[in-house]
């Protein structure tokens, strides 16, 4: 083994350029496989994990759009439902918690969500509630008070906009940062600690603020109502974009789904995790294509190892003949070539982790910036050991053909002097 390792090291050193190129190709292949499998698995986990609610009630239409809009704060709102329907569900004995969301404005592209202070008591993940951030031992403000023109910023919003506690800002109408700027001025009362969820990209304000926002028109009664700034708005005019629900058991979900359908104006997206699971199942073909591309890149890189070694076999016939003349067994020559191929693949597999780290870092940054969802670069996935081992095995396999050629070297013929 020691002799084979010595021969392999020296040969790799002697053919440093082709070693570097083929190991680089193997690294890209390994990194691609690692990235495709681990990033898709992590993305699935991130989007399918429990968001702290069981169901979302919203305007009649697509459940997926409702979930993307209210849980992930992506997409446009599918429309509004009357305040009375929110109250009806809140009072339903099968509902444990109902929190209304009203959307329609943004600040520098970050969504503004009008809601009630109860949102800050929700467990958005097991054992974790929204909390005010702490910096240098000081809490960064407080939650907003219902009815006031106050705002609480998600951590990513604060980071990107530079807004601090007591700063004032004017919301912009719609989802476009370049839209109409409302006259209403809001004061930042608090900044939330990072949650690594889409909530980090949200500006939370009291729901009354959305109702009273300059230019907003309420249609809860079926007719348009343009409220005065200090008006006590009648319940019939109010409307909400979604109601986030926590239910009392699974049976409640089935019954409330029917209840929402029977209202004629609403849809209940339940269970939320299943809605997102369905989305990923529909995207399965795309993931399969990525996997196939990754496998093809692996095949090409392994073919590269085979070709680069095989092409050197003719010029190395004399080297093998010398080794044999010095007493090397045929098996030693064979094993040294297979080991050389495996060593190139192993170097590629190790470098593949670096490629994987770069890809995951880029994907995580993009996903966090665009959705607030955070990937865990260190999350365990079986591909993290299976892919490098597979690359190593395939590399050794790619070395079999050149090794066979080396094994069959005619010693006497190749020891003869060449002119």
């Amino acid at each position, binding site marked *: 083994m020691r002799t084979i390792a010595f021969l392999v090291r*020296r*040969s790799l050193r*002697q053919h440093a350029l082709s070693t570097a190129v083929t190991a680089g190709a193997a690294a890209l292949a390994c990194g691609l496989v690692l990235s495709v499998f681990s990033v898709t698995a992590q993305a699935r986990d991130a989007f399918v994990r429990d968001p702290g609610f069981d169901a979302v009630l919203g305007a009649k239409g697509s459940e997926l759009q409702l979930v993307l809009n209210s849980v992930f704060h992506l997409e446009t709102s599918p429309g509004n439902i009357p305040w009375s329907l929110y109250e009806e569900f809140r009072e339903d004995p099968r509902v444990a918690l109902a929190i209304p969301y009203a959307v329609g404005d943004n600040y520098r592209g970050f969504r503004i969500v009008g809601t009630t202070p109860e949102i800050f008591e929700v467990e958005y993940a097991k054992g974790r509630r929204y909390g005010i951030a702490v910096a240098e031992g000081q809490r960064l403000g407080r939650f907003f008070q219902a009815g006031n023109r106050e705002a609480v910023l998600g951590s990513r919003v604060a980071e990107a906009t530079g807004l601090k506690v007591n700063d004032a800002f004017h919301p912009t109408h719609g989802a476009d940062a370049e839209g109409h700027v409302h006259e209403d001025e809001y004061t930042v009362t608090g900044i939330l600690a990072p949650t690594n969820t889409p909530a980090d990209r949200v500006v939370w304000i009291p729901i009354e603020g959305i109702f009273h926002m300059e230019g907003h028109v309420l249609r809860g009664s079926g007719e348009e109502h343009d409220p005065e700034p200090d008006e006590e708005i009648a319940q019939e005019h109010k409307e909400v974009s979604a109601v986030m629900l926590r239910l009392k058991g699974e049976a409640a979900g089935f019954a409330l789904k029917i209840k929402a359908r029977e209202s004629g104006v609403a849809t209940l997206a339940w269970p939320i995790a299943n809605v997102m699971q369905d989305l990923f199942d529909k995207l399965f073909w795309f993931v399969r294509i990525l996997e196939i591309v990754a496998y093809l890149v692996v095949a090409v890189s392994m073919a590269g190892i085979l070709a680069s070694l095989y092409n050197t076999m003719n010029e190395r016939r004399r080297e093998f003949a*010398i*080794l044999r003349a*010095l*007493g090397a*067994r*045929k098996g030693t020559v064979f094993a040294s070539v297979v080991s050389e191929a495996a060593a190139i693949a192993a170097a590629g597999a190790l470098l593949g982790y670096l490629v994987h780290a770069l890809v995951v870092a880029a994907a995580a940054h993009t996903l966090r910036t665009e959705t607030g969802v955070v990937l865990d670069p260190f999350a365990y996935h079986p591909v993290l050991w299976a892919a490098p081992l597979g690359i190593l095995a395939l590399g050794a396999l790619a070395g079999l053909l050149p090794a066979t050629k080396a094994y069959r070297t005619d010693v006497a013929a190749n020891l003869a002097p060449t002119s």
Partner: protein
Amino acid sequence: MDALVVERLKKAYVAPDGERVPVVDVQDLRLAEGAQAALKGRSGSGKTTLLNLIAGVLRADEGRIVVAGEEITALPEAGRDRLRAERIGYVFQTFNLLQGLTALENVLLPMMLRGAPDRARAAALLERVGMNGRLDYRPAQLSVGQQQRVAVARALANRPALVLADEPTGNLDEQHADEALGLLRDVCRENGTALLVVSHDARVLGRFERVLALKELNRA
């Protein structure tokens, strides 16, 4: 005990037309322990084939070869490889150093193949052949004379019973040829190693007390 015994050795090649062409037919050749001899013969007379048979690189059709008491012709390929690694040193006309290895590594290699690498001995051998200070040079960084010195050191690496040298001065000029041959003979003598040199060069042959004519030995 003789370092080399060759008896009734025959080897033939099959020509493209299917005819068997005898190349080697040696009835008796012996070399005592530590003895030195030259084997003369013209080009194409089967000198290299005979050396390859003795080294076990080629298999004989008939006859027996005994190296340091072990019959190499009775051994399977793996056994011949082992015997070659342990008991036979080889010096080639074109030196046949491995280009990717340094001078020191070229000398260490036969020891590693035998499973007993000894850097100190490899360095000492290189110093003995005048290569001190160039242990880490690659073959391409050495002159032809220096390369042949490394090849001599490599042949002696495993304290062989027999060194086979095939036209060892064929690629050297007159001065370097004399030096290399003198060195080879001296080093073999110091190590108690038998030496069999094949050559067609009269000046080389003239340096040996015992010169065997292949045309007399070889009936092929």
